[in-house]
């Protein structure tokens, strides 16, 4: 088994941390995993992305050209990665910041009003957890309980009080994506 996830958005949207939470969950459940960020000038106020590869054997390339799963938190990321995601793959889109629908028909696209849902959970910075929850529903590479456990285990002590909000955000994102997958109107 090997699965790859690419998460992209603006710096400050929690892109890198969302990837790290999944990397921790993969490690804690006994998988091999790589987490690799874009780094350097493009991070300073521009776009950021990270790639997480989860596998049962020694991981070769930590980068993938055509990932099976993409989380796009803004329009530039959606524009770029809609074309690169694998046939049959999944794109989870933050429709709060993307004003168009997908053009491709050979992929599954989940639309999540991430900003609004995060606000509803009490903090707009929970966007990354809403989107992580949605991804787990559409791309079940990790179990929700495992990701939650990883978050609890690796979140610094000073942020531990935010755990319930983070769990709530993940669950809401998960439920939203599940409903969409099952054709239930939001």
């Amino acid at each position, binding site marked *: 088994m090997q699965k790859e996830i690419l998460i992209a958005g603006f710096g400050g949207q929690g892109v890198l941390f969302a990837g790290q939470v999944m990397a921790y969950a993969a490690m804690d459940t006994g998988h091999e995993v790589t*987490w690799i960020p874009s*780094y*350097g000038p493009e991070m300073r106020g521009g776009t950021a992305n990270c790639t997480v590869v989860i596998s049962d054997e020694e991981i*070769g*390339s*930590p980068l993938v050209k*055509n990932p099976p799963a993409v989380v796009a938190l803004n329009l530039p990321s959606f524009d770029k990665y809609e074309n690169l995601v694998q046939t049959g793959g999944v794109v989870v889109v933050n429709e709060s910041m993307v004003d168009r629908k997908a053009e491709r028909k050979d992929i599954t696209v989940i639309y999540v009003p991430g900003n609004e849902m995060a606000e509803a959970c009490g903090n707009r910075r929970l966007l990354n957890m809403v989107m992580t929850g949605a991804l787990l529903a559409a791309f079940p590479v990790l179990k929700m309980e495992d990701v939650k456990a990883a978050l609890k285990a690796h979140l610094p002590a000073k942020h531990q009080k935010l755990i319930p909000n983070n769990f709530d955000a993940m669950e809401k994102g998960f439920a939203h994506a599940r409903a969409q997958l099952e054709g239930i109107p939001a």
Partner: protein
Amino acid sequence: MPRELLKGNVAIAEAAIRAGLEAYFGYPITPQTEILEHFARRMPELGRAFVQAESEVAAINMVYGAACTGVRVMSTSSSPGMSLMMEGLSYIMGTEIPVVLVNVMRGGPGLGNIAPSQGDYNQAVHGGGHGDYNPIVLAPSTVQEAIDMTVLSFDLAERYRTACIVIADGSIGQMMEPAELPPMQPVKRKDWEWATNGAIGRERRILSSIYIEPAEEEVANLRMFKRWQEIQKNEVRYKEYHLEDADFVVVGFGTAGRVALSAVRTARQQGIKVGLLRPITVNPFPYDVLDELSKRAQAFLVVEMNMGQMLNDVQLAVKGRVPVEFYGRPGGVVPFPDEILSEIQRVATTDLQVVSDPRHAWYERMVEYLK
């Protein structure tokens, strides 16, 4: 020790600390600055020496000074900074003292960029400083290997009184992977018979790279070469993947090697009998292993994130028996597995000739590919 999710740069720094590093001297440069930052916090809290030098030139000479006292000392940098350290490296090699350096390579030449690259292979392996010298050069491809090789570097440097250079690249420095750090070793000051640490109760010592008499310098060069032969005999390290029945052999180190592994696996699924040799010591280079492989393989494919540098060492080992092809992405571009897969397919299905410089044909293919 439990597995932790560690960033390559941080892992290298912490591994060095646990290997008994007593002093670090460095200068900030991307993509290795997290190494310096980790030391900046950790070394003072352990009561060990940390200096942010005024330049890489100064940093390597601080390393030179501290190394003369016999303690475990290191510096780290990235490509442009390593160029500035080449003067000091030559002096260190000429003085025959143990030093550990890490180069988290980035795109070049010149200021280049900060993306992952393997453009400094020749600088490290075939000498970037003046004079004849052979440092040990290790090329990790994972965070775990970066840890293990950093620790190993100190042992090798001391065993052979030489510089040991770890060449990683920006992606290994910036990547996070689960890895296990070694247990904390106490700092052990060894009473080296050569260290200039104050002539208290003994004859004075001089450490220098001067041999003003050419005949003496010649003897020194020969002595260093004899030691290098020992290193070549004892310290070659590499990793083999699917080579047992391989008709085709991909050779790649570091990140290029692990990207090639993905391509080799896919090619195997497609029925191509291809394997991968990933040199871990690029100096000493696994010439003998490649020599043996060249007696049963039909062709080689060298994959590097540069314009073809290790390529020459593979050719030296293969001795023209079979074709050695090249695929490279220079300038800070990391290849994707599908590019290497296409190259494997090409090598496996084309009637290739032995040529002295396969880069000319590669260049033509690259121009076509980039259109």
